[in-house]
């Protein structure tokens, strides 16, 4: 259970770390303003650009991607369904509705306060989703994400209506469509809390894995099922709220990263959580890079790129599974 507990020390772990460093370096160098290594040698202004914009953007992509991946993994353990993530469980839509309400009711509130409101709304929305999802027949696993999609759309539409009435549609679009181009120093640091949540998930990995075996097994092993469920919900809701508020919702990361990882190394969160964080971060970084170069010098939001890349990966996961039996 713990032999491979620290993938950083294993050989695949080192390779993964090297890959992420490589991607991050690329991300620092790619953009409208030329920041080649040669220019960095002689121009201090280039360094300023790196620290003010490129590095925050790169870190935001890594933090958001890692967080969303792990949030998806935890969500799948809570719901005991592999096709659930924060965009298909009403979590992101609830978070967006929450920050919208905070903006209407307390327009002067600071960003952390609004984020707290978003997290509370995400918690409430996801709790309702799980309460209903547990009543769906377990013999029909596809019903759960289907229900989640409809449920999320209902919340999203209601919130959009409110945004329309209050002239906040533009803001609402920012929260519901992930984009890293606006990320600057001083405007992404809240995302570090997402990293803390990933740490909490790793700390509670054994208990979350037992939770994924169901209520009876959890109770039989002496786990406080309800308390563990609450902890999982808090992890998912906080990560979702932070991502929605800081960069906007990014779809598919929470679906594709955990499914890729658990397919290969299994459901034990002790191993799966660090790898899911890595895959989520890399995937998000790659999609952001694609969005930056595909229509250079214009940018395509990461949410859009991820929609295409993630959907393709997900289809491959679905049908690849069947082909291999």
């Amino acid at each position, binding site marked *: *259970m*713990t032999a491979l507990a620290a993938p950083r020390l294993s050989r695949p772990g080192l390779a993964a770390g090297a890959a992420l460093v490589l991607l991050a370096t690329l991300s620092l160098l790619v953009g409208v303003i030329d920041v080649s290594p040669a220019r960095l040698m002689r121009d201090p202004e280039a360094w300023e650009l790196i620290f003010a914009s490129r590095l925050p953007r790169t870190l935001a992509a890594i933090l958001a991607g890692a967080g969303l991946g792990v949030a998806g993994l935890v969500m799948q353990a809570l719901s*005991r369904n592999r096709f659930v993530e924060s965009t298909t469980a009403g979590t992101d839509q609830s978070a967006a509705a929450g920050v919208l309400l905070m903006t209407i009711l307390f327009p002067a509130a600071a960003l952390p306060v609004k984020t707290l409101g978003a997290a509370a709304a995400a918690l409430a929305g996801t709790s309702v989703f799980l309460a209903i999802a547990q009543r769906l027949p377990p013999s029909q696993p596809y019903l759960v994400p289907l229900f989640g999609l409809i449920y999320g759309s209902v919340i999203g539409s209601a919130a959009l209506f409110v945004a329309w009435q209050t002239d906040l549609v533009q803001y609402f679009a920012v929260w519901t469509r992930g984009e890293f181009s606006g990320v600057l120093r001083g405007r992404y640091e809240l995302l570090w809390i997402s990293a803390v949540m990933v740490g909490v998930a790793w700390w509670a990995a*054994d*208990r979350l*894995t*037992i939770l*994924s*075996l*169901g*209520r*009876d*097994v959890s*109770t*039989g*092993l*002496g*786990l*406080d099922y309800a308390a563990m469920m609450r902890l999982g919900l808090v992890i998912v809701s906080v990560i979702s709220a932070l991502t929605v508020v800081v960069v906007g919702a990014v779809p598919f990361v929470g679906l594709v990263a955990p499914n890729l990882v*658990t*397919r290969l190394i*299994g*459901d*034990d969160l002790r191993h799966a959580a660090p790898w899911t964080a890595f895959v989520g971060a890399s995937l998000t970084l790659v999609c952001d890079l694609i969005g930056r170069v595909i229509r250079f010098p214009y940018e395509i939001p990461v949410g859009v790129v991820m929609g295409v890349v993630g959907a393709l990966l997900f289809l491959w996961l679905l049908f690849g599974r069947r082909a291999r039996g």
Partner: protein
Amino acid sequence: MILVENVSHAHGPNRVLHDVSLAIPRGGVTALIGPNGAGKSTLLSLIGRLLPLQAGRIHVDGLPVDATPGRELAKRLAILRQDGAVASRLRVRELVGFGRFPHSRGRLTAEDRAHVERALAAFDVMGLADRFVDTLSGGQRQRALIAMAFAQDTPVLLLDEPLNNLDMLHARELMRRLRASADAEAKTIVAVLHDINHAAAYADRIIALREGRVVADGAPCDLLTPETLSVVFGQPLRVERIDGTPVVLHHL
């Protein structure tokens, strides 16, 4: 020691158990038998605190199951249900390792690992130890789940239809293991069994339920008679004796 006093239970409008009382002393194998819907699984789940107690009292080793912390009980009783971990992508060794959770709370010690390896060997799943549970056949998965319950290493073991999906040789091997643990380690084992002949050959005591009531309770030799079986199952069954052990010819 398991003490059940005046337990009644209802699933919605259906009364499943009616005022059941029984005492199961420490050590030995007890088989719960009875037709489908007799309340066997409900009784086992209530003893294993997987269902909330509605009426009556249940004590395990003197501890009330509804008021003792879950962690405390998990060191005293392990329960195997009929439908665990079907779609889980855990390796068999990881799954069995989680059976040690009540003792280790996560990180496995060398002693925990020894328990895991023993359980893997005892139920013939050593060769499957690195396979994912969702790739196993029904019988292999059943053995992995039983190994997990055994790894929990509790004085009381509750098994709901442990012979499910097992071929006859693995079924016999499991019953021998249960017998051996009861004899050598004084474990208290209560199992819901549908194969009445395994109960006859390996149990010390058979408790028969019908429509939520205990209708017969005693040693296999005394209990397995055409008359008693007729009371339990509603029709007389032929019983022969081979080497002193009753054999119910239910298929003839």
